[in-house]
């Protein structure tokens, strides 16, 4: 039978396809809306491919099972949302300190508390800033299409192995639930087990721990981690730029917000507003270089997000507040509409012009 790599998939399905094509061998998860299709798809295909799928008793168990599988040198992943990610944070902190590669998919939902199952981006701080205890960061990839869900399902494992660190694929309920046409990438070659693995055939003196009683020992572990994060900041910043070169106003948005902002840019351009878009693809490392370069010629930034102004902090830090930065946001499961973004951006543009005009003698 002739096969094709063109397929229609939900975002939640595509990330599992990506993981399988990257050679992920173990999936451990606990159901939660709107991430459950990830577990459904994993249950079907990990099992059919003779790989490991296990429904854990809790999110806490799932992340610790991932820790076990990762310690044995296997590519392992879990997926959850909002409150489930909160539960996983202790385990992620251990993974970071033990320098174990692993992939965690977060299909964000509304919070705080039980919140709702609508799409929100309010996990930004708990995912991008470390989240658990200790001086650590995780690489965070933010897909805004089903193709990227699949591609980052692959890339996340590559980065996790390269830097021996947990990697998040963080998206929202819309990207998770929506279906798009995409091209499946070719399967990766199977990787040999890493030398540090706890597994029959490796050096049995391999040992994985995150306890260092001597203050100097723990400090040097922390310093090593910070050096790693500096490397990641240097080499792994990713962002998509759209009509930024001549833009007076640059919108910054990721995931579904970035995508809607892109449609808004087209409409703003039709109205004669010189607007552009930076869509961060990595949230850690935040695309600082791209933003600082843009700040040299643009007049204003707007953070478009489905949270209470969480990403806006990183924009301010990136450009050291050298330009005015405004916020267009929705919360509670609401998605900003194209019209909403266009209207608010236009009024910021008008304000910019009047203020600019006033300064002139």
């Amino acid at each position, binding site marked *: 039978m002739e096969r094709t790599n063109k397929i229609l998939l939900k975002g939640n399905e595509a990330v599992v396809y990506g993981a399988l094509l990257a050679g992920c061998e173990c999936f451990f998860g606990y159901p939660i809306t709107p991430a459950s299709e990830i577990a459904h798809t994993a249950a079907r295909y990990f099992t059919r491919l003779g790989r490991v799928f*296990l429904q854990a008793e809790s999110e806490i*168990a799932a992340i610790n099972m991932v820790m076990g*599988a990762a310690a044995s040198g296997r590519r392992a992943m879990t997926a959850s949302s909002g409150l489930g990610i909160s539960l996983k944070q202790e385990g992620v902190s251990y993974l970071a300190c033990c320098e174990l590669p692993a992939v965690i998919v977060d299909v964000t939902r509304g919070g705080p508390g039980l919140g709702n199952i609508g799409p929100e981006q309010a996990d930004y701080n708990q995912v991008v800033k470390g989240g658990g205890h200790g001086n650590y960061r995780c690489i965070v990839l933010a897909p805004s299409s089903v193709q990227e869900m699949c591609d980052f399902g692959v890339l996340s494992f590559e980065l996790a192995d390269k830097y021996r660190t947990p990697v998040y694929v963080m998206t929202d309920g819309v990207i998770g639930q929506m279906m798009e046409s995409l091209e499946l990438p070719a399967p990766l070659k199977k990787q040999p087990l890493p030398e540090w693995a706890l597994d029959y055939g490796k050096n049995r003196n391999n040992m994985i721990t995150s306890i260092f009683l001597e203050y100097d020992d723990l400090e040097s572990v922390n310093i090593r981690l910070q050096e790693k994060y500096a490397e990641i900041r240097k080499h792994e910043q990713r962002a998509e730029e759209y009509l930024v070169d001549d833009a007076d106003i640059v919108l910054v948005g990721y995931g579904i917000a970035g995508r809607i902002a892109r449609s808004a840019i087209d409409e703003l351009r039709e109205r004669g507003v010189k607007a552009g878009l930076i869509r961060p693809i990595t949230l850690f490392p935040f695309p600082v270089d791209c933003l600082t370069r843009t700040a040299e010629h643009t007049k204003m930034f707007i953070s478009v997000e489905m949270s209470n102004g969480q990403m806006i902090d990183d924009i301010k830090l990136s450009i050291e507040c050298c330009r005015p930065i405004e916020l267009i946001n929705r919360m509670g499961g609401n998605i900003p*509409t194209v019209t909403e973004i266009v209207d608010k951006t236009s009024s910021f543009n008008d304000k910019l012009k009047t203020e600019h005009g006033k300064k002139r003698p």
Partner: protein
Amino acid sequence: MTGKIVYARSKGFFERFERRPGAIKDNMHYCPGCGHGILHKLIAEVISDYNIQDKTIFISPVGCSVFAYYYFDCFGISVPHGRAPAVATGLVRANPDNIVISYQGDGDLGAIGFNNFIQAANRGENIAVFFVNNAIYGMTGGQMAPTTLPGQKTQTSPFGRSVTNEGYPLKVSEMVAALDSPVYVERTALSSVRNIMNARKAVRKALRNTIDKKGFSMVEFLSGCPINLKMNAREMNEFIDNQMSNYFPLGCLKDIADSRDPIKRPEGVYNSRQVIDVLYPVKVQKGVAPDFRNPSRIFEKERRIKIAGFGGQGVLSLGMMIATMSKLRNFNVSWLPSYGPEMRGGTANCSVVLSREPVGSPVVDKECNLLIALNQPSLDKFLPELKTNGVLIYDSSTIEPPNCGDRIVYAVKASDIAKRIGDLKYANSVILGTLSVVMEDYFLEGADKQDFDRTFEEAIMDCFSSKQSVIQLNIDAFYAGKQAVFKENQPDGAADNYGDCAVKNK
């Protein structure tokens, strides 16, 4: 007792404990009289005797034995408090040949990690759990444990454990023995020589089960903590043998390993050919070349479609068929279901956007080019979002004729036709037939007219490839929808809303 007495450190231990920080490299960090040292020795001896050091992973928990990896000459990992059975699950599922030892105290296993422990037991994970019960928290300085005896004084039960306030001690072995999955559960004590020799046998049996892949084995060890219980060695042993054993009777609670077959679980085979066969879809027979483009001008811009109706009317799968058509003709396409509380209310809608360029916003909230309404509330809700000169297709079996201004309106008795074909669920394919007429009447040019009938059929086949039996009925429904339009729309195009289908405002 027979056999030679050997005065040497077990080969399961390192010669010198180089991992231990500080000057002392020959002794363990445990207090005098502590049970951990004895149990460590029993385990070290057996992993050496069974020649399994190269595949044994010793999990150090949180508690006094957090540093167990200083001593054992095998793989070691220290894990979050209480999570040893979950980490063990990951290790043994990833490679079923790993011999995994989950070594846990009463706080780690009985309090913070009890759920992880009991669930791993109930899944029958092929691991050996060694549970050290000393009725107190050692590492944190003598607080109450779930196994602290009634009346026993600790830092957090200074007046003695009160059963009315803290409940009775947790009988872990009895609880786990009550489950069907575990194969071996025994409670022993690290007090007298006789008890220690029994404990030694139990350790060997548990690890033999693990090597033989018989499943979950647990041994509980009543153990001493003289420092925190403020006892000397003799008092400690008396406490174990009289008071603890009284509440936690020694003995084997379950041993069914002989009756169980070795567990077989997936071993994570990775074969890239197999991955392609499982994940890559089969190409539909009449597929087009990857660079094929339908030339009709309608496709020069992004097309935004909203489909809405009751749940169960096939709203989402109608959207899927349109999305599939677009995929088959090399468009970029997005399909977004109504998502959130609406889903529970019985109405459903989806947004489909197709484009030659990457699709922008997948949410169709205004500027809609095509609205397909399958019930009255959906029509009322979404009609205002339909653009001037946009197309409305509605099910005239159930919906009153709307007042639509400058829109192109097609009505089809989709539900009635579908019922005639056999089931309401074919209504969506009837609509698809109507859509094909709309396309031909207004939008398709030249060869695209022929191509699109084929595309509709291919989309139906692609969408229902897992349910071959319904493909033909859906194709029938498609042509019925198509015919209904032709039949009612002549000779003058003014066939207003009678019969099966009608075109208005043409």
